[in-house]
């Protein structure tokens, strides 16, 4: 009797899950597998995947890894095949994504903190304001940002009006950074806000009462307790940043290269699908490993909180 009930229950759960499972298999798992297969193929004369199967694509990425620390972040790096600069490309992407995540965090934290301390009515208004940008296409917003940073755009007009030197912002790494931070800010604010809103401020009083000053109370009590939001926000910011394409294209003008942009080039301008697939897969593996390590670092505290 109990057995049949259980069977029926698991059947129902399977039924409920099947649309989602189908979706994931059809539009995520299968394309991923196709990409994995392509990454082991050669390219035909038009750049499209063709037999025979080979490890050449991966070898091309790996073979030129030199332990040469004289890496310069200046000088727009364009993708030249077999140039042996992929390690730098990966590294620079991770680095830029990391910096942008930290900047996003530094901006988002005070905002989320402020929001969480508002009265219920204003809190909802603030949430609404954070979400407004989602109603406009990201591409359009990036063009707007481009306009802001332009040589004769509002920022430089203001600077000139104040008698200051105009800045050469657009198509620089700074512009890419501004674009990344701008685009990812809501994804950091929202999970942080969720954690902060649940945070019980009596905890800080308790820590103070037990001899912890503000900084130590923050480190030892607040930080661990809001770490779920911190982790979620960081992942939601870091991962899109590392693979970003539109921002790199429009804000960097192709002069600041990142891995997402480089991969896109393989599928368009350079037409080398197998090589692009290999880069994608490699990046996915790197990001996954980074994410797992990151989650693990905060796991002990996480377990207690959840």
């Amino acid at each position, binding site marked *: 009797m109990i057995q049949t009930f259980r069977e029926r229950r698991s059947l129902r759960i399977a039924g409920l899950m099947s649309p989602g499972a189908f979706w994931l298999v059809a539009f995520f798992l299968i394309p991923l597998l196709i990409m994995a297969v392509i990454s082991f193929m050669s390219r035909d004369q038009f750049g499209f995947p063709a037999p025979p199967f080979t490890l050449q694509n991966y070898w091309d990425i790996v073979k030129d890894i030199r332990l040469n620390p004289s890496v310069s972040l200046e000088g727009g790096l364009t993708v030249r095949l077999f140039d042996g600069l992929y390690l730098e490309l990966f590294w620079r992407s991770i680095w830029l994504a990391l910096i942008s995540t930290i900047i996003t965090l530094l901006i988002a934290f005070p905002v989320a903190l402020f929001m969480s301390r508002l009265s219920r009515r204003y809190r909802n208004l603030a949430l609404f304001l954070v979400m407004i940008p989602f109603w406009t296409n990201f591409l359009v917003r990036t063009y707007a940002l481009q306009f802001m940073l332009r040589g004769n755009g509002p920022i430089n007009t203001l600077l000139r009006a104040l008698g200051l030197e105009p800045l050469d912002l657009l198509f620089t790494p700074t512009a890419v950074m501004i674009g990344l931070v701008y685009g990812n800010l809501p994804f950091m604010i929202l999970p942080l806000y969720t954690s902060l809103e649940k945070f019980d401020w009596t*905890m800080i009083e308790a820590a*103070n*009462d037990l*001899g912890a*000053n503000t900084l130590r109370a923050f480190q030892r009590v607040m930080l661990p307790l809001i770490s779920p939001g911190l982790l979620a926000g960081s992942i939601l910011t870091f991962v899109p940043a590392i693979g970003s394409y539109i921002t790199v294209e429009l804000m960097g003008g192709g002069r600041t290269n990142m891995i997402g942009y480089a991969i896109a080039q393989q599928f368009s301008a350079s037409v080398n699908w197998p090589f692009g697939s290999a880069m994608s897969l490699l990046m996915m593996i790197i990001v996954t490993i980074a994410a797992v390590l990151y989650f693990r670092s905060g796991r002990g505290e996480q377990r207690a909180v959840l």
Partner: protein
Amino acid sequence: MPGGFRIIAFIASPVFERSWGRQFSIPEADALSEFAVEMRDVSKVFGDVVAVDHVSISIRQKEFFALLGPSGCGKTTSLRMIAGFERPTSGEIYIDGRAMGGTPPFQRNVNTVFQSYALFPHMTVEQNVGFGLEMKGVSKSEIVRRVGEALELVRLPQLAKRYPRQMSGGQQQRVALARALVNRPKVLLLDEPLGALDAKLRKEMQIELKTLQREVGITFIFVTHDQEEALTMSDRIAVFSKGKVLQIGTPLEIYERPTTRFVADFIGETNFLEGKVKEVDGEFARVLVNGDRIFVGRAMEGVRPGGDATISVRPEKVQLIEQPDGSPNCYEVQVHSIAYVGSDTRVLVLLGSNRLGVWEQNTVSTLDPNYFFKPGEKAWLTFRPENALVLAQ
């Protein structure tokens, strides 16, 4: 803690192996002032709300002191000012004779047991209890030893590795106590610590807290809205109302000699009879109630002939008799209702327009229903003048 303490603890520990009182107590030499905590003319204003209104309280060393009052009376704000979470708008707070001014909570030698316990959910019991010592830079081995002691003090050594959410409310409460006591504070502040416990556990913890306080010899300041709890546990009580302290005294003084109508009403049960003071004769005053009955009671401060006054008499101090006996305060009444509650019988009688409660102790074991008064019956009410208070209005 000054180094001197450790030496004393070291000398004492082999002798008093399991005597917590010795190990936890503050040596006499440490006490600078007669008072552990003093509030001198302290006020706290939030916006346009006066939460605490010119409060002065002196709490003696090693005293179990209760701040008692209904919610919103300023008792918790007072406690928070002593802890350092709020700064007085005016007035000064002294801890051990030292003016606190803007001293932050982490530099005050007091610890708090919060109403919600405020245990750190991401730390084990052990880590929670050791937190204060860790912040003070106590060595690891010393922390382990003292945390062990503190957990034994609250009888929870077996739960050291648990997380707070894996424990019952009562256990969490003990952890909160251990977390505060392990620091050997000068003063322990308790903000309605038993509020979240069920009635039975609360009674147990009342006794346990009192015993614990005697053992550790630390000043306890205890906020509560439960008058019975305050009476049971405290050495002295300060009764708060609307931001002001109405009376400070021992439970006996507060119960037997309330100086205001509010205190008489808030602590225990009482009957009020309102009237005009006819004359004051030494200790006693005669009050005309309803224009025709004279009652005599103990004249409290401010009672003047011709002034309005309220007589307060506790229901257990009133008797019902079948015939008048010629004593003062003896008037005919009608029994309205009776409630038998086991230990005593509670009779509600009508005296003109006044309703009075009379609690008669059931000192005789009987099954005879005629032993008790019945609703509608006539009876005579009486109470001794020294058992009634005449309160000025």
